[in-house]
């Protein structure tokens, strides 16, 4: 005999069904990400030092005033832009070329594909350490090759050079990040219907023209989204910098995200770290808002 529920109960059951399925995920996210976020924002306005167990007095905007005169912070801001810009541009370029190369079937493609995507499997800290060791003239080949090529006078460690140290993590980041772009772009390339290319070839288009008029327009949305999201992610990716230079030499390779970490982890000044984090959050929200507005205006144009 089927269970007969009242109309109200049944409607209620149906309405809550999707929420029941999403509940575990939502509870986790709220508890582990939103609550600390709120807490963290409050720390920005308090003096919270881990070494000082006696309460966390409210100090208002003191941290922010300190930030405005913090030279390391302003350098970190510039570094973040350079770090994110160089990384994304190089990752995208090399990733795009790789995706195009892999889009054509050839013997051994499966193996080649697995091998060139391998860097992504390497844990980021290991990739950082690995490249740090390769840049180290004691046991790594790169300083010696650079000297042989004439780019360096004597083999020395890029990572100790205050002017060029940033390139160390950038190279590691590009090596590590090419597969991500390549995979995403390859998936998008493979979604383009073959017959469009065939029709264009019959119409008389050569390879470059086909790329311009078919491949790029189809890829444009994927490229745009990937680059926009990835830029933010990379801008906040501090692991490589922490591992390779720890923000040095003399805080010259700090980006905002790594600066937050060193303030929290090494100086144990949770309040100041949170203040920097709040500024970062505001910058990100501005970035997101710009993207949304850009999208709206593009949609209106379409």
């Amino acid at each position, binding site marked *: 005999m089927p269970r007969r529920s009242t109309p109200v109960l049944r409607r209620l059951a149906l309405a809550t069904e999707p929420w029941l399925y999403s509940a575990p995920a939502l509870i986790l996210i709220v508890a582990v990400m939103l609550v600390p976020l709120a807490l963290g924002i409050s720390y920005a306005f308090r003096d919270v030092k881990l070494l000082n167990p006696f309460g966390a007095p409210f100090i208002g905007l003191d941290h922010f005033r300190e930030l405005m005169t913090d030279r390391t912070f302003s350098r970190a801001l510039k570094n973040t832009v350079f770090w994110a810009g160089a990384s994304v541009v190089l990752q995208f370029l090399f990733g795009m070329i790789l995706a195009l190369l892999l889009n054509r079937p050839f013997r051994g493609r499966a193996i080649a594909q697995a*091998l060139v995507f391998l860097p992504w499997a390497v844990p*980021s800290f290991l990739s950082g350490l*690995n490249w740090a060791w390769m840049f180290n003239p004691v046991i790594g080949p790169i300083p010696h090759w650079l000297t042989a090529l004439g780019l360096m006078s004597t083999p020395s460690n890029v990572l100790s050079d205050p002017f060029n140290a940033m390139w160390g993590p950038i190279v590691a980041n590009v090596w590590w990040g090419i597969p991500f772009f390549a995979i995403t772009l390859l998936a998008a390339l493979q979604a383009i219907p073959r017959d469009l290319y065939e029709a264009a070839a019959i119409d008389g288009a050569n390879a470059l023209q086909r790329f311009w008029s078919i491949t790029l327009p189809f890829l444009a949305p994927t490229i745009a989204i990937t680059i926009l999201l990835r830029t933010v992610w990379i801008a906040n990716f501090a692991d490589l910098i922490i591992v390779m230079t720890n923000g040095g030499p003399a805080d010259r390779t700090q980006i905002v995200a790594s600066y937050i970490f060193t303030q929290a982890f090494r100086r144990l000044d949770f309040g100041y770290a949170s203040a920097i984090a709040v500024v970062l959050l505001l910058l990100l929200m501005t970035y997101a808002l710009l993207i949304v507005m850009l999208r709206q205006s593009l949609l209106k144009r379409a």
Partner: protein
Amino acid sequence: MGKASLLGMVAHRLAILAYVVVALFPLYWLLKVSVTPDRLLYTEGVRMWPSQASLEHYVFVLAHSDFPRFFENSVIVSGSTAFIVTIVASLAGYALSRFQFRGKVWIVILMLLTQMFPLVMLIAPMFKMLAPLGLTNSLTGLVIVYTAFNVPFATFLMQSFFDGIPKDLEEAAMIDGATRFRAFAQIILPLTLPGIAATLGFVFTAAWSELLFALMLISDVDSSTFPVGLLSFVSKFSVDFGQMMAAGVLALIPACLFFLLIQRYLVQGLTAGAVKG
């Protein structure tokens, strides 16, 4: 075959070869130093392969150091996280794929937002939240944190796999007498095995590589995961390169294995929504 296309083919193969070499060289170097015995390390620094290879570093790392402990901790944490995340993300991804409900938009926005903001920000409050609960210096604490971090992306992954399975399969099962949950578990889930494999692999790799939160939350050597252990080793014994590289090679093995297994599915997964399975 015309001359132009032969040239093109050669160029194509050379380019692929260049990428493969660049991709593999650092790993090769890692391997090379790890099998270079200490006495040759500084004299033969830049050779492509040591004149005499030796496994002494591996022996040391495996038998006389804390690395096996670190390895074990990482396996426990990454495995548990991957397992739990896959379950949670399957449920949530199913909800997003099959139901239209008010608030769906908000859930999607919430998940997108979590992908965009820097997790580094949460380090300080996270420590203060977990310390009184006794979850610092604890693998359980790490698992909870990692699970929450990975759920949004995993949910999107699973959702795109679910989108590739036609809805009438559940409807047929529900008419046959199954409740929706039963249809989900018995009919739909088995069909998304590639998606599950991809999610497991992706989350495992992500948890295996996580450094900053592990560094912050774990200070006890006994509970250290691999990244923390390796990093502390590096800072304490920065001249034992051979041993560190051996440890690095060991750390690579699970991650690369997993990845090689699932990379095929990742490409598939990203296009799964477009082509109905």
